[in-house]
């Protein structure tokens, strides 16, 4: 537990605390009066209200659309499942600038909806909500689906045999088992959408602003660090409340579950109802995810003289002005390297944290347990989630004023980029692994201990095989997050080895057909790289351990 705590203290708590202190203490005097003053401004209240309700609406909508998807991925066996699962994760890595472009092409002027029905949704809140579903679909499918796939379907079947209706069997057997992971997914989606930045800026026009865009505005544009600090504190409190509520609801629900290998539980859809569900999910994926991505792919081939590979060819040749110090294709290598390092860091830190969060509980229970220690552990659990809900600009600026002295003079170092990415990856690792780790039947570990296994051996022989799948899913998340991570990365000064999303943003920032086309082509490559990496990661799972449990 010491390592993850140290990691968070150094790379999160310390920088954020420093920047907040800088804002709140002017010339040695604390400016607490600014809280009341800032929080009574009507435009700030508008921002807070909009942030809250759009996040709640986005979360609800995402769950509504993605839970059937999670079911289909967990329970049905069909061709191309791995590929489809990779595809739905692609939005996760897409630079938000590109997603904004894609959605404008669908719901904006001259877009599909406009052509068909004359409906335009850009600069409406609907565009923001739909884009949030697009981004977070995979969060639900992967977090919930990961556990669902391993639930023993025979329990539900038993309930049916005993006379329960299908709905009742699901509600009383499956839903309670799934609750922790549904709550975890909802929590992540909420935190993500509450701190949404680029989507709101691009699709919302100048009309909407969230807490996140407001903190950015106060810090970067107005350089009013005091107001920014007040808003950061508000963000902290809000996220804290959300985490507390989440912890409360989940704590009572977590129980040991019977788990099976996913291959045993999944089968082909049967009957009209299942096929209809299957078709509906495929349709929603096609409309919400494949179509927007398809727009970008289409544009990457559309040159001024018909379709062609011109933009892709241009990526290999040096820029006419020699502007990028490295060929654009090298940015793929940069991105992959950063992502691998970030994934490793996230897995080590997140894995240790998840293990620490599971183990003490069992030990506590056997000793009769102390409530303080339990609370401490839960507090730590919540702490790990904070980076998801706290503004990237706060963290980025915080890095600047804290990591400036040896041995942590990291500001000019490349390692800062994967570190910042890992900060966002860790919560995913913890969230995906924790429900599974906690669901491992304690008696299995006890049995191992009775039979003379050391704690390490018990973990290796009991926990590891059971969590291997969750570990891979977590790795996939961490990898995808760091591959597409843009928020934190742009707030950190980078030596000139741009990542792919950064290169895309730079291309879009210049006039000229070739720049625009190359941005589209690079984004398409980013999609493919992401999908292929995730597919490879899933392949790692081929060793059959299913016989053991």
């Amino acid at each position, binding site marked *: 537990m010491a390592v993850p705590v140290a990691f968070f*203290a150094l790379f999160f708590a310390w920088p954020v605390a420093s920047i907040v202190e800088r804002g709140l203490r002017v010339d040695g005097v604390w400016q607490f009066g600014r809280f009341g003053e800032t929080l009574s401004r009507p435009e700030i209240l508008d921002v807070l209200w909009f942030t809250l309700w759009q996040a709640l609406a986005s979360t609800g909508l995402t769950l509504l659309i993605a839970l059937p998807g999670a079911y289909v991925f967990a329970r049905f066996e069909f061709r191309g499942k791995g590929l489809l699962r990779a595809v739905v994760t692609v939005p996760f890595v897409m630079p938000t600038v590109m997603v904004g472009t894609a959605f404008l092409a669908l719901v904006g002027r001259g877009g599909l909806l406009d052509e068909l029905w004359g409906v335009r949704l850009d600069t409406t809140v609907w565009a923001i909500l739909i884009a949030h579903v697009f981004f977070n679909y995979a969060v639900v499918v992967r977090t919930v689906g990961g556990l669902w796939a391993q639930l023993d379907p025979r329990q539900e079947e038993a309930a049916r045999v005993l006379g329960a209706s299908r709905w009742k069997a699901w509600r009383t057997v499956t839903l309670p088992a799934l609750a922790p992971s549904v709550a975890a997914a909802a929590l992540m989606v909420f935190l993500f959408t509450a701190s949404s930045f680029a989507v709101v800026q691009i699709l919302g026009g100048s009309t909407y602003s969230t807490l996140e865009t407001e903190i950015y505005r106060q810090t970067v544009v107005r350089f009013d660090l005091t107001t920014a600090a007040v808003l950061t504190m508000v963000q902290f409190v809000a996220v804290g409340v959300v985490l507390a509520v989440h912890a409360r609801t989940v704590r009572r629900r977590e129980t040991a579950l019977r788990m099976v290998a996913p291959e045993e539980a999944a089968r082909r859809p049967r009957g009209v109802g299942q096929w209809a569900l299957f078709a509906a999910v495929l349709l929603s994926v096609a409309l919400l995810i494949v179509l927007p991505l398809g727009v970008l792919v289409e544009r990457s081939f559309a040159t001024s003289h018909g379709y062609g590979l011109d933009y892709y060819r241009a990526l290999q040749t040096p820029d006419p002005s020699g502007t990028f110090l*490295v060929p654009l294709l090298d940015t793929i290598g940069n991105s992959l390297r950063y992502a691998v390092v970030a994934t490793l860091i996230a897995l080590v830190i997140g894995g240790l944290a998840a293990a620490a969060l599971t183990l003490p509980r069992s030990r506590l229970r056997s000793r009769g347990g102390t409530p303080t220690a339990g609370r401490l552990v839960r507090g730590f659990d919540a702490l790990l989630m904070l980076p998801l809900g706290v503004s990237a600009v706060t963290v980025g600026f915080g890095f*600047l004023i804290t990591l400036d002295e040896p041995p942590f003079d990291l*500001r000019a170092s490349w390692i800062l980029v994967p570190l910042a990415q890992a900060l966002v990856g860790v919560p995913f690792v913890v969230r995906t692994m924790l429900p599974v780790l906690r669901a491992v039947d304690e008696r299995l570990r006890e049995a191992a201990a009775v039979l003379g296994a050391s704690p390490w051996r018990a973990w290796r022989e009991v926990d590891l095989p059971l969590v291997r799948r969750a570990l891979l899913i977590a790795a996939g998340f961490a990898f995808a997050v760091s591959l597409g991570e843009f928020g934190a990365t742009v707030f950190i000064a*980078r030596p000139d080895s741009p990542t792919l999303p950064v290169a895309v943003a730079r291309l879009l920032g210049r006039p000229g057909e*070739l720049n625009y086309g190359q941005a589209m082509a690079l984004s398409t490559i980013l999609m493919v790289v992401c999908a292929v990496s995730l597919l490879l990661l899933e392949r790692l799972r081929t060793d059959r351990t299913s016989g053991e449990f």
Partner: protein
Amino acid sequence: MSTNPVSIKKAAAAALVAALGVTTLAACGTEDVREAAGKSGAPAPKTVTLVSHDSFNASKEVLAEFTKQTGFTVKVLKSGDAGEAVNKEILTKGSPQGDVFFGVDNTLLSRALDNGIFVPYAAKGLDRVPAEYQLDKEQRVTPIDSGDICVNYDKKYFADKKLAPPVTFDDLAKPAYRNLLVVENPERSSPGLGFLLGTAAKYGDEGWQDYWTKLKANGVKTVDSWELAYNQEFSGSAGGKQAKGDRPLVVSYASSPPVEVLYGEPQPKVAPTGVSTGTCFRQTEFAGLLNGAKNPEGGKALIDFLISKKFQEDMPLQMFVNPVAKDAALPELFTKHGVVVAKPETMAPEKIAEKRDPWIQQWSSLVLK
């Protein structure tokens, strides 16, 4: 918070060796990321760190030339957009991220100078730079480049409509150009701010509000960023064509048409876009030696180099700006497809610093509401 951050940092350091151990271990395999940025092999030569905004670029040969002349290697650190990069330097004053900062423009100059992030240095060769660019009498900053923010027009649109494109600010408010112009929000975009300042310089502190009221009545559209304006709304760009952009007038740069030619596929004989030369605001970018620089000698040499003929002539095709040194020649692309902006609007940095926030607020309630 502690009053003694240093001891806290040391304590933290001791406790955190474990964490760092993990991260460095994980990092072993990717040492080449670092090497891609610097030169590999041989013991590292003395480096000088240049902090700049994301748009900074220079060709490899030119940076190599600097190393050959001085023995210093340049390490470039990109620190966000211009406003963000300047704020970061203010935040880290006294313990800067590098030695030289490049990219503070006249709209941000006062903020940078008032916060004391630069120390004076009289660059060698400054006599080749016209006095009009040297805005700081104490020489804390050195002018490096200049550019103009102007309305661009889609040539094809105006040819098809047999309509003369607008030339001046006044033209933009005429009924003939109703619903044709898209601008950027001055609070969130630097060309947007430049355009607002241009109108304020033209119509005066009290007159620009009337002008914008007319623009609004004439159907001006506002978006948040240059990217959205140019790649989505402007009918003359590749992105705008695909997105069916319907605004043939956009606030962009005087250098945009040559860049359209450079990145045409294939390169067109004439630029597809033109510049309304009576709608321009002059932007000048400066570099300065950072207060607390670790390598001030290297920093001074670098500033000298930034106004050398070699660097000044490399700049236009790298960052699409004009050189300030009199002896630097413009590339053919610029002389052939660019325009000469004879009388750009200008404004003193002190005035910009004073008026910027209230004006943006007035603008918002006038145009956005």
